[in-house]
């Protein structure tokens, strides 16, 4: 039954095709059935295949299905083929399941939008591309999916295209990720040129055989792949697009910018982990990027007013955790956090969507308040998601996944105390900004009245994801709680386990410290934002306090930096080159030929004697050639 794997990416693609060719002429219920139904059907098939894979794994714990040979040119023969192993099964299940829940939610959230059919068409195309990406058996097909999700991100961020600001945000998202895509393309070319194939499993084998550890080729390839991952996953220095991408509808933010597309970079690095194992410098860079990003984004999240922007910076920060885990060699921990993060971040975005919908499109948290009593259907999911995000000990799934990373940052052979310190401070910041958001938006007095309440189709996904955010941690119980690392064991066939150096006593101390960070952050948030908000107001009135606030709110001035260094010189050059220098060569050709035309036209005087003279001149020339040469 594994040979039905091709159905999984195909069903959403069929949904996309149907919705595109009917072009909004179907009635809304039909659109909802096609749009959400195709993804639901795909999720059912994926669940069935996944269950079979877990219960009756094939030989070698891997299954390849080649559908057709895509290109066959001079020995370059990539195929359209799907590769199913434990990692792919997990990614496939996460994408289809969370995708289906978000599609179900969108059938009610986007019910009054005029672009209903277009929305589901784009969402289906996105899910199809993402599934192609995670199931691809060669890097070229993966890159096809990579580009597909980038395209859909552009289309969906700029969904409300009549407002030019949305178009700008979409363009920014596309252009910044493009920078990463170029790096990835060069990396793919390098890999193909030196190793002769792009199929992932043979590629990894050949790389391990031919390239010694620390060789310059491996390091270059790994850095280029890292460049691609950094672009798509919004890490330093290419993270500036994600907060602006919140201009799209909330389900888009939930699906693309929380659960799936931004995790594509993490998946790519996990898939090519052999390459990173061969290039320790690149792996250190992965960890460094992750650590720096999680701190940077944490500080920025503390100063945002828009509810979705807080969550966007939070996403950047959490993916930084995943990169940190990849960088210290804790591959399985990174994927575990990816899965748990998909659950709680999608939950948080969907709950914020309920709030935005209920308050008639209000995004500013300082205009909300008291929603704990007014909108409990949003409060409880948000609280559970926030607890998972803050890694509240024992009762949230985030605790298990994030603490595993923090632990491995200290104890892995590639980890260091600095990385652990960064992760710990990041955990403190996470609780701080999360509960700042919760306290300001949901506690206190109500400032805006609630207009709409969510219906069943919005509540079912919220409830499902809330449950998963609480019990998801059971898949990976640490040593002092029963020692049942089911998830890591499951991925053992694909990803190597982390080299751990710490003793169990150090482990306990570290776990305690993590718990302190999480709860301490919540308490600090309570003090600063609920009990004594005047401390911070006084702080903000100081000149350097206000400057610090602006600096963090402006993404550590990176937007300003890119604007000054890249955007403005480019605009200046475009203005200077308005009468295009290269085009002037072609215009020059036209001008020259027109001049020749003018010159030749002037010889047509219409005077007969003139024509006779030209004939004489011609005959003189011909005669001289024939006589003298």
């Amino acid at each position: 039954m594994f040979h039905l794997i091709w159905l999984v990416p195909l069903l959403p693609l069929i949904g996309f095709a149907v919705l595109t060719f009917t072009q909004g002429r179907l009635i809304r219920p039909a659109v909802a059935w096609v749009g959400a139904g195709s993804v639901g059907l795909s999720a059912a098939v994926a669940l069935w295949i996944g269950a079979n894979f877990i219960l009756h794994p094939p030989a070698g714990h891997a299954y390849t299905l080649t559908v057709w040979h895509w290109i066959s040119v001079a020995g370059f023969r990539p195929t359209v083929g799907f590769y199913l192993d434990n990692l792919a099964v997990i990614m496939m299940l996460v994408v289809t399941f969370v995708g289906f829940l978000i599609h179900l939610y969108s059938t009610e959230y986007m019910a009054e939008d005029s672009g209903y059919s277009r929305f589901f068409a784009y969402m289906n195309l996105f899910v199809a591309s993402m599934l192609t990406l995670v199931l691809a058996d060669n890097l070229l097909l993966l890159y096809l999916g990579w580009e597909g999700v980038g395209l859909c991100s552009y289309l969906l961020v700029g969904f409300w295209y009549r407002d030019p600001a949305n178009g700008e945000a979409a363009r920014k998202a596309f252009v910044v990720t493009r920078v990463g895509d170029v790096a990835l393309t060069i990396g793919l070319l390098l890999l193909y040129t030196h190793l002769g194939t792009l199929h992932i499993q043979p590629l990894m084998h050949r790389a391990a055989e031919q390239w010694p550890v620390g060789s310059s080729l491996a390091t270059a390839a790994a850095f280029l792949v890292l460049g691609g991952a950094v672009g798509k996953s919004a890490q330093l220095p290419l993270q500036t697009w994600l907060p602006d991408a919140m201009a799209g509808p909330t389900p888009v933010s939930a699906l693309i910018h929380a659960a799936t597309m931004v995790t594509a970079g993490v998946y790519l690095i996990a898939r090519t982990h052999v390459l990173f194992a061969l290039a320790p410098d690149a792996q250190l860079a992965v960890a460094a990027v992750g650590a720096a990003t999680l701190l940077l984004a944490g500080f920025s999240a503390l100063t945002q007013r828009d509810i979705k922007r807080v969550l966007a910076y939070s996403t950047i920060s959490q993916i930084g955790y995943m990169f940190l885990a990849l960088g210290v060699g804790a591959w399985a921990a990174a994927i575990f956090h990816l899965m748990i993060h998909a659950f709680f971040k999608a939950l948080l975005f969907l709950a914020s969507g309920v709030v935005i919908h209920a308050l008639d499109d209000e995004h500013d948290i300082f205009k909300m308040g008291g929603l704990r009593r007014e909108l409990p259907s949003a409060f409880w999911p948000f609280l559970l998601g926030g607890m998972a995000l803050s890694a509240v000990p024992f009762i949230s799934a985030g605790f298990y996944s994030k603490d595993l990373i923090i632990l491995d940052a200290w104890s892995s052979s590639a980890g260091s105390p600095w990385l652990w310190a960064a992760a710990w401070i990041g955990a403190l910041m996470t609780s701080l900004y999360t509960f700042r958001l919760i306290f300001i938006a949901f506690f206190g007095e109500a400032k805006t009245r609630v207009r709409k309440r969510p219906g069943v189709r919005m509540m079912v996904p919220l409830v499902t994801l809330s449950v998963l955010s609480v019990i998801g941690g059971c898949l990976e119980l640490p040593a002092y709680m029963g020692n049942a690392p089911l998830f890591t064991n499951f991925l053992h066939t694909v990803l190597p386990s982390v080299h751990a150096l710490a003793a169990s006593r150090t482990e306990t101390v570290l776990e305690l410290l993590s718990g302190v960070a999480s709860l301490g952050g919540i308490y600090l948030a309570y003090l600063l934002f609920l009990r004594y908000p005047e401390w911070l107001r006084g702080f903000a009135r100081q000149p350097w306090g206000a400057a610090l606030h602006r600096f963090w709110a402006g993404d550590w001035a990176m937007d300003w930096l890119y604007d000054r260094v890249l955007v403005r010189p480019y605009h200046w050059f475009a203005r200077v080159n308005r009468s295009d220098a290269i085009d002037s060569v072609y215009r020059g050709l036209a001008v020259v030929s027109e001049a020749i035309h003018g010159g030749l036209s002037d010889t047509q005087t219409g005077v007969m004697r003139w024509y006779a003279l030209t004939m004489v001149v011609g005959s003189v020339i011909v005669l001289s050639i024939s006589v003298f040469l």
Partner: protein
Amino acid sequence: MNATFYVASIVAVLTTMLVITRTHVVHALLYLVVSLLALALVFYTLGAPFAAALEVIVYAGAIVVLFVFVVMMLNLGSQSAHRERRWMTPATWLGPGLFSAVLLGELIYSLYVGLPGREGVNVVPSRLVGMTLFGPYVLAVELASMLLLAGLVGAYHLGRREHLQH
């Protein structure tokens, strides 16, 4: 005979020069007649008496007469001579004169450098001409007569005045 040839050719050249420089059209035509007669003499000295006769009869006797008739019809008299003088300034002679001189120089060069020997001149009797004309070249004669017919019809049609239009 040599002297006849040289004198006749000099006369022909001089009168031709006069033809192309006269402002009064009738004067030019009269000089043309003299030039054609001189050329007929040249033909005779070159051993082509039939060609000489034809030159006088057809060229000088028919074609130039046609010219004279048209000139008389158009009444080109002394005012036209005035106009012609105005048109033929020395400046107009410069360019064409230059190119014609270059052309003549090349022709002379190819005549004197190209030709290997200095062949002589022979007589071709009229009898031979007649026999060849109605022998192998009889088709050419028929075609020439058709050409003349076309000329006749064309001249009649083009020479008509259309009273109704102007």
